[in-house]
């Protein structure tokens, strides 16, 4: 048999996670896949973005200066591609109740057109993911999961809703998610909504409310679910559209926003914006080893949920969380203001000024708005009072820090 007769198995164009086939590894000949591009990948490349792998996706880290992108969001507007987020549809009779059992929050009491920040926990009370759940119909919910947790959440929702008569559908690959964030966001978006009633509805949306609207773009009309949600500490909107409309929407928003100072913004700016706003990020402040109470988010756990007969409703993690709610915390999530210039970053040890360990930094960076480094950290309760002087071991040198209230930044 000659070499020419040898048949190589044809690799799949995409692996089971949807990541594209890139080629064969030169050492062992194994097919190499991934990171998967978002529907806006070519737009990012054309805009000169630095693209980075994030949770299996190829994402724009920054287009130029991440600090300039951060400031644009604080003073004008920024445009984010969030198509890596997981969108999971839960629908059918009893969908609200099914989510009441699957998640720690009360979703059956959510009004149609409203959204809620909530979490899924494991039976031991550890956080599986933090989520935003949109009620888009009486029996229709959209669960938005962190990209790193999207597959786990899809599996968990299937499992946790199996006893109910509801469908759990992964819409991640068919949905594009774009966010317009900043004080100019509402004006920019209003200019793209042609219908007067829809425009009034969009501009009048309360926080954590959503509406459907058709946006007028050069490439044609784009139907969107528009929600007044975000992750930057600014006013802003998140727009869910079908993937085939992603480019039209992106270009339409960029063109409409440019006169108002809107710029495309990458994951680097998104991270410093949410840090200044004191918002937790899964993998940093939230992990399967902390409970919502540890993160100061015990309010999302609704131990008072009841079923139709008024009896306490069981949900995944209830027993462990009920016990945890009664106990004094072992650790507290705090804000730290760094006195010097060197940033305290994730994983760095927090100590007393004398060097006694009291905790660990979960997120930290130089704050573009404050002009000095800020951090979030888990510390022992005794070290958590506002004004407590502590230190962070920044690569072998103790940097003085002070416990300050969260958030670091609040829009005026």
């Amino acid at each position, binding site marked *: 048999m000659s070499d020419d007769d040898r048949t190589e198995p044809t690799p799949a164009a995409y692996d089971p996670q949807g990541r594209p086939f890139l080629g064969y590894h030169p050492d062992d000949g194994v097919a190499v896949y991934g990171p998967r591009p978002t529907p806006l990948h070519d737009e990012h490349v054309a805009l000169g973005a*630095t693209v980075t792998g994030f949770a299996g996706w190829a994402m724009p*880290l*920054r287009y130029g*200066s*991440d*600090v*300039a992108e*951060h400031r644009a969001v604080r003073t004008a507007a920024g445009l984010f591609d969030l198509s890596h987020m997981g969108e999971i549809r839960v629908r059918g009779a009893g969908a609200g109740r099914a989510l009441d059992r699957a998640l720690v929050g009360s979703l059956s009491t959510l009004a149609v057109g409203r959204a809620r920040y909530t979490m899924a926990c494991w039976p031991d009370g550890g956080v599986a993911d933090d989520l935003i759940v949109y009620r888009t119909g009486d029996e229709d919910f959209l669960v938005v999961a962190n990209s790193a947790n999207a597959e786990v959440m899809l599996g968990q929702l299937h499992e946790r809703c199996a006893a109910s008569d509801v469908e759990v559908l992964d819409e991640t690959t068919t949905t594009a998610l774009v966010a317009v964030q900043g004080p100019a966001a509402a004006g920019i978006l209003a200019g793209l909504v042609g219908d007067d009633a829809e425009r009034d509805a969009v501009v009048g949306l309360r926080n954590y409310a959503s509406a459907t609207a058709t946006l007028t773009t050069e490439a044609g009309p784009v139907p969107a679910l528009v929600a007044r949600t975000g992750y930057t500490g600014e006013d802003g909107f998140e727009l869910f559209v079908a993937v085939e409309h992603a480019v039209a929407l992106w270009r339409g928003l960029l063109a409409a926003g440019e006169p108002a100072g809107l710029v495309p913004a990458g994951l*680097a700016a998104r*991270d*410093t914006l949410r840090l200044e706003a004191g918002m937790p990020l899964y993998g940093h402040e939230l992990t399967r080893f902390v409970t919502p109470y540890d993160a100061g988010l015990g309010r999302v756990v609704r131990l008072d949920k009841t079923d139709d007969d008024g009896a306490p409703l069981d949900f995944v993690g209830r027993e462990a969380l009920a016990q945890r709610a009664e106990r004094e915390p072992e650790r507290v999530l705090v804000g730290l203001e760094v006195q010097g*210039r*060197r*940033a305290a*970053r994730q994983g760095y040890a927090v100590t007393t000024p004398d060097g006694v360990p009291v905790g660990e930094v979960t997120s930290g*960076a*130089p704050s*573009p708005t404050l002009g000095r480094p800020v951090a979030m950290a888990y510390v022992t309760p005794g070290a958590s009072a506002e004004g407590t002087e502590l230190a962070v071991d920044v*690569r072998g040198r103790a940097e003085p820090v002070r416990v300050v209230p969260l958030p670091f930044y609040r829009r005026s």
Partner: protein
Amino acid sequence: MSDLPSDLKYTAEHEWVRAGEPVTVGITAHAAEALGELVYLELPAVGDAVTAGQVCGEIESTKSVSEVFSPVTGTVVEVNDAAVDDPSLVNSDPYGAGWLLRVDVEGDAALLSPEEYAALVD
């Protein structure tokens, strides 16, 4: 890396050296771009001794922090205060206004030609 100045020498840790007495030291555009906009530089003081291949400072962006390795052995005779005040100079003009240190060099250091450095980062 078509924009690598041909009159400079380089290190594998992404520093550049401009010949002279003293030599001028900075970081490459490749390194500056990889870090993102720099917001803080920690550099040695005038009079400090630096050793080739040893850490002599830190450069920090919002997203990450990186050590600066001295490409040469000698004594620091000047620090770019303008870049310390406005680290984004390192991003906007890494081979010019964004230089970091001037060093009185003792002896020779093993440095890379532009071609050798380009081969590392391409």
